[in-house]
Structure formats: structure tokens, C-alpha cells
């Protein structure tokens, strides 16, 4: 972690933080309430250094001094870390178990889901929310979603997930009320997957 921020390197965030974060939150809330629905955050500002616009928008909207953030090692010490530290001011942690949010840009090399905080029996809301940046939210292997927020079923075809990831998500759902929750981002787009969603892998 660098000690001093060079402000010349810090890109701007929302031109109007109040309206901007409200608009992003409503999309993210719709995503979390309706798993599998994809929303567009094209109105959000550019984010630096390999961080997609939607990933940056989610960070600006939800991170602050109250949230311990686990940053992907690829983002550590770079412009993205400086941008998040300047605009959100969150404490960073290297311990996934302690993190309120994890910002993951390389899911293949990230810790297993069980390394993150699954919540407490009495306070399952204390679990980690993983914000996972992918190359695309479409075109990958299909999974079928059912559960709260879904009328009949939804199909999701996230690209760029490592083998065995969906089995981990299934195991995460099996231990409800414990579990992590997911916000997937790619480019300008966002979707979410709460722990309450049942996953069926196509071809199983």
C-alpha cells in the first residue's frame, strides 16, 4: 500500500455523487432482488486500470470507511487502488475472511468461496459480498436459476468462470442461511446472485 496518493493520477468519479450512486444502487438492488436480470450502468464514470465501468460504479456506490475491502492482487498498489481509496476511503484487508466486500478481477486465481466470510448463524448478513469482474455476462456455459426473485426460472451464461465455480456456488446455496452473495460485472453491465438462488448446471 503506497503511503501518499498522487492526486494527479486520480481519475474523477461521479460528477454528481448523490444522483449517480442512487441510480447505480437502484440497478444493483433490482439485480439482487431479481437474480439473473442484467442491467446497464453505461451512465457511470470510467474506472481506471483494468477496472470495468460497472465494477467501479458498484465500488463507488457501496464502499466506504465502514467496509473492509479485499482487493484482487492485480489491483493492489495500482491506479485502481488509489482511485478507490481516494473516492471511497475504505480500509483494505488481505484477509478474505474479514472482508465485507471482495473486488475480484481475476476469479481464476482468487481464493475459494469458502475462504470468504460466510456470516454468523445469528447475523448471516455479516458475510462477504463478492464483486466479480468477468469478460462478459453472456456466452458462457448456461446455468438455470430458481428461487426467490424468480417467477419460473432464469438462465445465466456468465463467461470466464473457472471450472468448478458453479459447484462452489451450489455448495454456497446449500448452507443457507450462511453464504456469500455475488455481484457480477462485465464492461457496463451488472447482474447479481444472492445465496438464496438455486443453481442447476445444464447437462447435469
Amino acid at each position: 500500500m503506497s503511503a501518499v496518493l498522487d492526486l494527479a493520477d486520480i481519475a474523477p468519479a461521479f460528477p454528481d455523487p448523490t444522483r449517480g450512486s442512487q441510480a447505480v444502487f437502484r440497478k444493483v438492488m433490482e439485480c439482487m432482488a431479481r437474480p439473473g436480470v442484467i442491467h446497464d450502468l453505461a451512465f457511470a464514470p470510467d474506472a481506471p486500470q483494468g477496472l470495468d465501468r460497472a465494477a467501479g460504479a458498484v465500488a463507488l456506490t457501496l464502499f466506504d470507511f465502514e467496509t473492509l475491502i479485499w482487493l484482487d492482487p492485480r489491483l493492489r498498489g495500482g491506479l485502481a487502488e488509489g482511485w478507490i481509496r481516494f473516492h471511497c476511503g475504505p480500509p483494505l484487508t488481505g484477509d478474505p475472511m474479514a472482508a465485507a466486500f471482495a473486488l475480484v478481477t481475476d476469479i481464476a486465481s482468487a481464493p475459494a468461496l469458502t475462504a470468504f466470510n460466510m456470516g454468523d448463524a445469528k447475523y448471516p448478513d455479516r458475510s462477504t459480498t463478492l464483486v466479480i469482474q468477468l469478460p462478459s455476462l453472456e456466452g458462457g456455459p448456461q446455468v438455470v436459476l430458481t428461487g426467490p426473485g424468480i417467477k419460473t426460472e432464469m438462465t445465466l451464461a456468465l463467461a470466464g468462470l473457472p471450472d468448478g465455480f458453479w459447484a462452489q456456488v451450489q455448495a454456497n446455496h446449500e448452507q443457507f442461511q450462511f453464504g456469500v452473495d455475488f455481484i457480477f460485472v462485465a464492461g457496463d453491465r451488472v447482474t447479481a446472485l444472492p445465496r438464496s438462488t438455486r443453481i442447476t448446471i445444464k447437462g447435469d
Partner: protein
Amino acid sequence: MTARPNEPERYYNYAYLDEQTKRMIRRAILKALAIPGYQAPFGSREMPVPYGWGTGGIQLTAAIIGPDDVYKCIDQGADDTTNAVSIRRFFAQVADVATTEETGEATIIQTRHRIPEKGLTEGQVLVFQVPQPEPLRGLEARETETRAMHAYEEYGLQYVSLYESVAAHGYIASTVGYPTMIEERYLMSPSPIPKFDNPKLGQNPAILLFGAGREKRIYAVPPYTNVRSLDFEDHPFETQTWEEDCALCGAQESYLDEVVLDDSGERMFVCSDSNFCAERRAAGHAGPMAGHQLAALDKEPA
């Protein structure tokens, strides 16, 4: 719909709450949606109305509302009661939103103790004001104990309570705040809505958010979620019914309030949902007392 004022000067932050408070509430909303029926704690702030006047609902609305929203606020189903009018004016002033009384037109509906008669749609959020979020509080006073009961899904006490009601009255006597089970996991208080509204909680297309300001809890029922009102095989859950129709609009399927009219015991039954009743009357429906002075379709003075 009334136009938004678009005041150039603002003495408070947009939607009254500061940005950090809104972020904290937003994070709690996301976790509440991820764990349907679970009561997520949040740092409830002091609001410009007393506890019991909707501080939880107001904070939820303030955290989600934006200038493109259309806001409706009802109290016991009515748009024209003191609590509803003042909260609606509050958000028109601090959040520059358009307000409406029409259920179908609103994107955010804040409610005290009713669910509108007209079916909600996918674009809508229903925000409940909750005095006591803990369904087990009347049976167990300690928060540490009720939290453990939720954690270990230990809901036997609730069934004992319902059984005692059957033993004493011959039926389950609870009529408001009737306990519900969310996705067969979390016992949830539906807030003091009449049990007439309980069936609307399940498989609803809208997002249902519940806020308790004094008790500092947020919980949620996502759209299309399974909600079961507790009952017994030999005492199935039933909603209220009335022998009367609405005296003003003649509705037979809506929730009716009994209104005493004079000292001699004259009374009428009218829809508690004022917008539902007004729309029916505007469409030509008439009840037995349609000529009564209370039937006049007055709009709230601007």
C-alpha cells in the same frame, strides 16, 4: 400526479439523509434481499418525525428514491390521512419527486399497515413501516434469545401460541401482524397489515422492503418469493370477510373499514384503500350510500 418543485436551493442533503447513511442502509437492503425474511440490523438515524410515525419506512425510501421516481404514501390504505400527507410532502420537498395517489402510477409506495388492493407490478417497490419487526417478541422478550431462535429455526413457541389461541377461542384469533414463514426458513412479521393482505405477500411481482426505525431492523421479501401464513391442517389460514359491501363503491372484494356516523350507532363500511375506492366510483360503481357526503371525490388541496 403533482409536478416536482425543482427548488434551486436546498438546505438538506438530497432525500434528507447524508450519503454515508444511505450507503449503510443500501448495504443492509442488499443483504436483506439476499436472505429473505431475515432481520438485518442497521444504524437507524433520528428523523424529523417521532418513532412510530414511519421512521423506518422513511429511511428506506430516502435510501432508494431518485428524482425519476413517482412516490405514493398511504396510511391504513388511505392517501389522505395526516401521516400519509405529511410524509408525501416531505419527499416532494427533500427529494424533488413527483407524487401520486394512483397505485398503478407509483414506482415507490410507502405504506403503513396495508397492501394496496390493485395488484403491484415489476417496476414497483413497496416500503412498509414496521413498529415491531420481531414476530416472536410477544413470546420472548430477549433479543439475544429471539435471534438464536431464528438462527436455529426454532419456531415451536410460535405454533404453541397459535394453538393456545385455537384452544381459547376455537380459531386462530390473530387478525393483524399474522406471522408468516418466508421460503420455509425465516419466521417474519408482515408488519401490522390485516391478515386479509397476507396472501399478497407471496409471489408478488414487486419488491417488498420493511423498515423498523426504533428497532433498527430492515428486512425484505424479494419478488416471487414463497410466503406462507402459519396455520394447522385442521385450522387452515383464512382471511377476513364482510357481509357488507363498500357503502360508497359497492366493492365486495376489498378490505373494509367500519365508520361510525352518529351518536345513534349509524355506521357504514367503506374501502380502506382510498385510491381503489375513488377509481371505482369514478368508473361508475356505486354502493348503497353513494349519495352520502363522504362519497364526494375531493382531491387533496395542493
